[in-house]
């Protein structure tokens, strides 16, 4: 059975750590990092990458357009 897998790439240095993507994600994929970027922001990252479906919701609400989204249909893995 086909399964949708997604992944996001965050432009870490441009992320301001606002956290809007965290609440927008229906699969609880994203968290804010404990580490900070050069500007001191706790940037967003995929804490739970397996759950990502590439639904784009995080990218839609991101005010700084730092999220790029990829999606692929795969066969279900065991």
């Amino acid at each position, binding site marked *: 059975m086909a399964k949708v897998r*997604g992944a996001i790439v965050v432009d870490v240095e441009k992320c301001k750590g*606002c956290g809007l993507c965290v609440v927008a994600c229906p699969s609880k994929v994203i968290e804010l990092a404990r580490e900070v970027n050069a500007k001191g922001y706790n940037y967003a990252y995929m804490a739970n990458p397996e759950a990502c479906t590439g639904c784009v919701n995080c990218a*839609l609400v991101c*005010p700084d357009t730092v999220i790029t989204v*990829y999606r692929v249909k795969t066969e279900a893995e065991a």
Partner: protein
Amino acid sequence: MDVKDIIKEENLVYSKTKLLTDNIMHYCPGCTHGVVHKVLAEVIDELGLQEKTIGVAPVGCSVLAYNYIDIDWHEAAHGRAPALATAINRLYPDKYVFTYQGDGDLASIGTAEIIHACNRGENILVIFINNGIYGMTGGQMAPTTLIDMPTSTTPYGRKTEFNGHPLKITDIIAQLPGTCYVTRQSGHAPAAVRKLKKAITKAFENTGKKKGTSFIEVVSTCNSGWKLSPVKANEWMVEHMFPFYPLGDLKDE
């Protein structure tokens, strides 16, 4: 499947439109301006209108909007963007002219300009960011500030007997025969962003059809001015702003 196998060009489903510049936005983390800029840039790009679009930037936080969307821009005096857009539209009737204005700019100092531009039915698009506060100057009361909402010039909350009532200027604009499309949108959640994009697309199409003024209010947050986190600001907006400024079309002709 490994993440690195997913992150491949052929699997790309969303990336920054090339019409957004690489400049890091000066807006606070979580600011709605960024979302609206992005959607606006995407619409202009997708409709292929970069060469025909002229933006008029306001005074306020988005005074520097011209740094972020790769089109020709004219930065107006406070509140006067609709007057500039009127002239540009009259002199270049085949261009797509939009103004981008905040609530202080549009609904206070620029009330005359917006009312008369809409009443003349100038063939322009107006994007009106309503976050109930003056962001750039540091969180003062705006015409759209809600009753009892604290700001730096209403530190004990807006009182109607002292400060008057919050102005639903979009409701007034919708009464004007010059407007063809008046809608109130937001950008706080994925579905809201999708609707906002549809609204902006429709507005540009209206301009192409020379239907008159399209007016899009975007109920927005100013988390710095509201002194809330970006996430809490969105929640506060849903709870307090949306009941007074309900989302949806006021007019679509």
